[in-house]
């Protein structure tokens, strides 16, 4: 241990020292980039530099799956085993890779070269089975040997508002053009900007569908300084990859949205919180932010920083995300108070999803009335859908709200085989069947049908698939990702896995049906945050659709 070269560590973390505790995740990333893992003396050095208690530093390292406090292979191969990839043989891929390198999952090879890990959704569902390889501060899409450092975008749609620049590589500022929406906003009062966004009827695209204008109004009215705009780029809902495509191909569309939000609420600082599995977004965003600064859109009272997560689905929950930026374990906070008044660093904050922010410049540039020309009265505009699984052309699809599930599947080349079910909304979603094919995909129609739109996941399962296995995998996902704070979710996600294992292994017990329901409803009713409240959603929907499986 003593021969660790601390001088290179100091150099790597020097820039984060002024940030104090909020520099903890960046410093840990930098250290791991240097050494491949974070040893005790390195953690101690970081603690001293940032003035964070030792036990807290350890607590943070332990919370995030992508931080290693014991040696990992020089390259770590993350194989996604969540449903969309499982349909494409990811478990077999894990076995093959393990055999190739003579290791078991999670084990470091004898030469210290490689670790193969089963991974939760990598947000590469249209490229299933997805593999992501990391090595120090480098990464590759695919197994070792791949030269690819970012995933290709596969974009379709009957209309191209949000995806107008997507599918042809990253649009730089020259291709994106001037920030016309922002320029228009500057000619209006902040109140008028908020009124325009409210008039557009824009609803949050991260899953909760909260009216964006109302959120902005709350933060604009809140007392406190500074105010923050956070772009929630922790896209981790299994089956979701839309935000990755938007930022990879069209970062300026989102940065412009953040600038407009900042003007509307009077924010001086913004953050991109990028999920740890999307490090390839960081250089793209850095370049785009530099272009925006050079053009004068940023740096005049508002600027944006990037923070990289480290493998924790819960950090997509807005208050857990704040905790993570603040350098803590990603525990969700109790609400109220809400982020609009007590957000990042306890200050008034607007936090919006990537896709939500991408809508904003369109609304400002064209006006709310023109924006409402697509979609329905209660769900105006267009929506991004992430199609994966047994469908002809998996990929990102843009369509106006109101398209039916049948039309969407047809646009994507139809179902491969005979349709059994569609998982809508991701792991936190619910199953639709052939009976739901003519449901219009809008917030109101889906609510009436008892289905979630969530983040726009449309994961297709044909009739050859064993959905019980998919349910078990979803349950394992939540057990892996529960933060452990509140009892219903901490223990309920574990009990749910144990019961579903019996279902899959043919050891179903007489009272398991009632057990599974009690666990599911207790999580739904009593959990502290949205993760626990939706951790049984897919299971409960399957129990309602196919009660015979659970007899």
């Amino acid at each position: 241990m003593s021969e660790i070269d601390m001088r290179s560590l100091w150099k790597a973390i020097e820039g984060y020292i002024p940030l104090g505790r909020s520099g903890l995740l960046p410093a840990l990333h930098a250290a791991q980039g240097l050494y491949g893992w974070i040893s005790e003396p390195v953690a101690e050095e970081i603690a001293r530099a940032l003035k964070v208690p030792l036990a807290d530093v350890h607590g943070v390292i332990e919370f995030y799956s992508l931080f290693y406090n014991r040696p990992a292979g020089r390259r770590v191969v993350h194989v996604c085993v969540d449903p969309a990839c499982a349909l494409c043989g990811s478990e077999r891929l894990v076995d093959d890779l393990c055999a190739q390198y003579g290791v078991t999952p999670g084990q470091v090879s004898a030469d210290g070269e490689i670790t193969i890990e089963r991974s939760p959704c990598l947000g590469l569902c249209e490229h299933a089975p997805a593999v992501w390889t990391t090595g120090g501060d480098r990464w590759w899409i695919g197994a070792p040997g791949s030269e690819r450092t970012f995933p290709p975008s596969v974009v379709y749609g009957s209309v191209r508002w949000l995806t107008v620049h997507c599918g042809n590589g990253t649009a730089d500022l020259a291709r994106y053009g001037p920030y016309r929406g922002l320029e228009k906003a500057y000619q209006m009062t902040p109140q008028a900007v908020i009124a325009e966004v409210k008039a557009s009827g824009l609803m949050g695209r991260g899953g909760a569908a909260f009216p964006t204008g109302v959120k902005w109004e709350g933060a604009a009215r809140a007392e406190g300084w500074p105010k923050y705009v956070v772009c929630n780029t922790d896209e981790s809902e299994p089956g979701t990859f839309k935000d990755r495509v938007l930022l990879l191909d069209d970062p300026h569309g989102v940065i412009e949205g953040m600038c407009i939000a900042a003007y509307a609420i009077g924010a001086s600082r913004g953050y991109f919180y990028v999920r740890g599995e999307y490090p390839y977004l960081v250089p793209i965003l850095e370049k785009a932010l530099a272009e925006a600064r050079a053009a004068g859109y940023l740096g005049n009272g508002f600027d944006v920083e990037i923070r990289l997560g480290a493998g924790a689905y819960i950090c997509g929950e807005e208050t857990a995300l704040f905790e993570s930026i603040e350098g803590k374990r990603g525990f969700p906070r109790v609400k109220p108070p809400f982020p609009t008044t007590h957000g990042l660093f306890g200050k008034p904050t607007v936090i919006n999803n990537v896709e939500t922010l991408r809508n904003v410049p369109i609304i400002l540039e064209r006006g709310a009335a023109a924006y409402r020309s697509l979609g329905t009265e209660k769900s105006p505009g267009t929506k991004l859908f992430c199609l994966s699984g047994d469908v002809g052309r998996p990929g990102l699809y843009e369509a106006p709200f109101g398209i039916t599930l049948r039309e969407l599947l047809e646009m994507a080349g139809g179902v491969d085989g005979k349709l059994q079910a569609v998982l809508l909304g991701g792991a936190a979603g619910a199953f639709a069947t052939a009976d739901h094919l003519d449901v219009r995909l809008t917030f109101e129609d889906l609510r009436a049908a008892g289905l979630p739109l969530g983040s726009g996941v449309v994961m297709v399962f044909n009739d050859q698939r064993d959905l019980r296995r998919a349910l078990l995998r979803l349950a394992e996902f939540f057990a892996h990702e529960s933060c452990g704070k509140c009892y219903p979710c901490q223990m309920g996600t574990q009990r749910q896995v144990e019961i579903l294992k019996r279902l899959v292994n043919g050891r179903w017990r007489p009272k398991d049906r009632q057990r599974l329901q009690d666990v599911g409803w207790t999580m739904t009713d009593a959990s502290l945050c949205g993760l626990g409240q939706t951790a049984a959603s897919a299971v409960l929907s399957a129990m309602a659709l196919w009660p015979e499986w659970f007899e």
Partner: protein
Amino acid sequence: MTIQLMMDGREVIAENGQTLLDVTQRYGIVIPTICFHPATTPNALCRICVVEVEGQRLLQPACIVRAAANMKVQTRSERVMRARRTILEMLAATVDLSEAPDILAMIDEYQADPQRFPEAHPRYVPIKDDNPMYVRDYSKCVLCWRCVQVCAEDAQYTYAINFSGRGYETQIGTFFDQPIPETTCVFCGQCVGVCPTGALKPKREALLEQGLMPEQIVRLNTGRRRRT
């Protein structure tokens, strides 16, 4: 200023700013709590105190939700009872509750079945006996967080302990699992004082339970071990 609200069908009066839990205490309505402690910041994490509030989609934790005028609260509705019972049953399948009399009493009261979850994987951790003042038996830990809170800003500002792991595998832990004497612990004993389940126990109590006499314990001279 006082507020009027309905609780279990009867009219009750609350002071402005009181939580629902505060209100119940004045009226003899019993709401169970596990993580709540008057000396620590409430985190509303055990969720055993949840109640049903009319107009709210989700059950609400009584320990932090403030009473509001005309609120209609059910403290023992069917949904509330199912949540409390299931939480207790899951806890019994996870943790050794043998020295948690309050929780055992709740299990009786809510007719929770401690054997409800067969083949459940309990959270077993070997006993940590690494210092002269207290013994840590985390198989008995319900993760109420009180020890971590009093070790930090709620009392002592010592920061000797935090969490390790995540989710079901969460544990209370020190920096890289160091023994307590090597941490910043000042042996104030506050963590032991707020532990509700015997997961933290004074060393002397543990030795007495092992059958030692006080005189023998003194001869062990445990109090003069290395303290760094």
